[in-house]
């Protein structure tokens, strides 16, 4: 079962429908977590949402509790939230991307996606990861071809993944492919 933590976003249910293609999904607000179900779940997904990671201390607690024990996936705000908990700094961008289609490219650090593969994806974010950023296990694996902004990461040791873009958006071509690959990676 997949547990999706909703940060009261207006895109979360697109995420729910996307994950529902692969497994049973339970979704609840971040302030209304069913702890039993969360504990039973195989995968935890941190949804997109307004604001910045520091606005959601409850979700950070959940992340720390289950790190290394369950597969976890962050999307947009969820992506930033994981990085924030791994010592990353999240900051405002000069150019802001809401409803924007961009190209991203996979780099050599990915164990799941083919190197140099380019995807068209949809973006909705005001903030981004401040770089340079270093982490022992977590690698940035996809970047915007134009601005070089970090767009995906993998921590294959702890099974933690994140997308700054929205695989759930209609602007992302083949969005299901990203989710399928991440869910099936062992």
């Amino acid at each position, binding site marked *: 079962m997949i547990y999706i933590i909703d940060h*009261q*976003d*207006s*895109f*979360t*249910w*697109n995420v*729910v*429908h996307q994950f*529902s*293609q692969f497994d049973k999904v339970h979704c609840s607000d971040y302030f209304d977590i069913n702890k039993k179900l969360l504990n039973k779940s195989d995968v935890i997904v941190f949804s997109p*949402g*307004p*604001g*910045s990671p520091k606005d959601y201390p409850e979700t950070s607690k959940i992340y720390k509790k289950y790190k290394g024990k369950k597969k976890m996936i962050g999307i947009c*705000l969820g992506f930033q939230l994981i990085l924030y908990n791994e010592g990353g700094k999240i900051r*405002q961008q000069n150019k*802001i991307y*809401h*409803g*924007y*289609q961009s190209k991203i490219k996979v780099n050599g650090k990915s164990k799941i996606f083919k190197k140099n593969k380019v995807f068209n994806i*949809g973006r*909705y*974010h*005001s*903030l981004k990861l401040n770089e340079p950023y270093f982490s022992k296990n977590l690698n940035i694996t996809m970047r915007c071809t134009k601005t070089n902004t970090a767009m995906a990461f993998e921590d294959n040791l702890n099974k933690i993944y994140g997308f700054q873009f*929205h695989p*759930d*958006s*209609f*602007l992302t071509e083949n969005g299901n492919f990203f989710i399928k690959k991440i869910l099936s990676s062992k």
Partner: protein
Amino acid sequence: MIDYKKHKSNFSPYLEKLYQSDKPMIIYKFIDGYKIFTDFSKRIVLNKSNIENFLNNISKKKFKREQDLYVGFFGYEILCNLLNVRIKNQKKNGFYKGLFYKPETIITLSKKIKISSTLKKQGFNNHFNQTKILKPFKINIDFKKYKKIFDLFSKKIRAGETYQIKICTKYKNKSEIDPVSFFWRLMKVNSAPESFMIRDKNYSIVSCSPETLIEKKRLKVTTKPIAGTLKKNQRLNKSKALRFFKNNDKETKEHNMIVDMERNDLSKICKPGSVIIKKKKYVEEYRHLYHYVSTIEGKLKNNINLKDIIKSMMPGGSVIGCPKIRTLQLLNSQEKEGRNIFTGSFGFIKFNMDMRFNIIIRSILNYKNVSEISAASGVVLDSSSKKEFSENYIKAKSLLELFK
């Protein structure tokens, strides 16, 4: 425009009597004409505490004939209440938060006039309200105040708190109006697909809303968000307008966001995998402007009730901004005057749970001898406050012209 001519050529003494009386009545645009609802046997005033009961009770009723439906509106405030979003310290004029009517007579105006009623006799009295303009229109926020809110919201967008937000401005005058003649005059120039009129004893609404928020037939739910407005001029036509929207970054991004948002709102109540974009990014033409539109549909999950549908779809995302909850909170903290019907929804719910609702925009609300016309346009990062402020005026223009 064709609809209007069709209707006018069908002179009916019955209709003239109805129009000239002060009997409460509602007119709603349909694909090939209009429907008039009247002889109301029930009038249900909605508030925070009875709305859930109202919705639950409908599902217990039986649908036997055409008249088995409620027609009316949900105001903006009651929709916020349903979502537990608070509104504090706003100036209000005491207008209804929501009101629904049970009609006993329905008149269909298309090629022919069809009158269907559960009553044997329909009475009229002779009472005619002439339009009187007592004081000219004034706008409730000037550009300076508008710019202040605009700049604040731009900051909120930079901080990621909202991705798009719509500021409402209001034009008000002192007037008495004859809503029926206003409505038909409006239909002559702008018979928008979601137009409607309500005439009741103590208020009236005249609207040329272009936007369908919910069309539900059995399990199928359709929504048709509008995001993108272009002022008409002589050099433009529909295909040039489409090219403009496609090449315009700001309009495209704004539209994309609303499409994803409406997909989300439908997904909340629909079966996984059933939500599809039926028609992506097309142009509709109106009196003063072109609109950029998409059609999205889905199939309802089995255990969904009326309240679930209303809560996930209303207030319509395209007139609020995104993400909905946080954006509503921001709006309610900055707008100093209640929105009343503006960005609420008008429509009907049949007793078999089929329904159609629009988004109440491009509307005149006349209450206590004040007519108010509201308009809203979006703050996204690339918009300019001047342009959005004047876009509000373009949107209100065809209604303001009725008072000339």
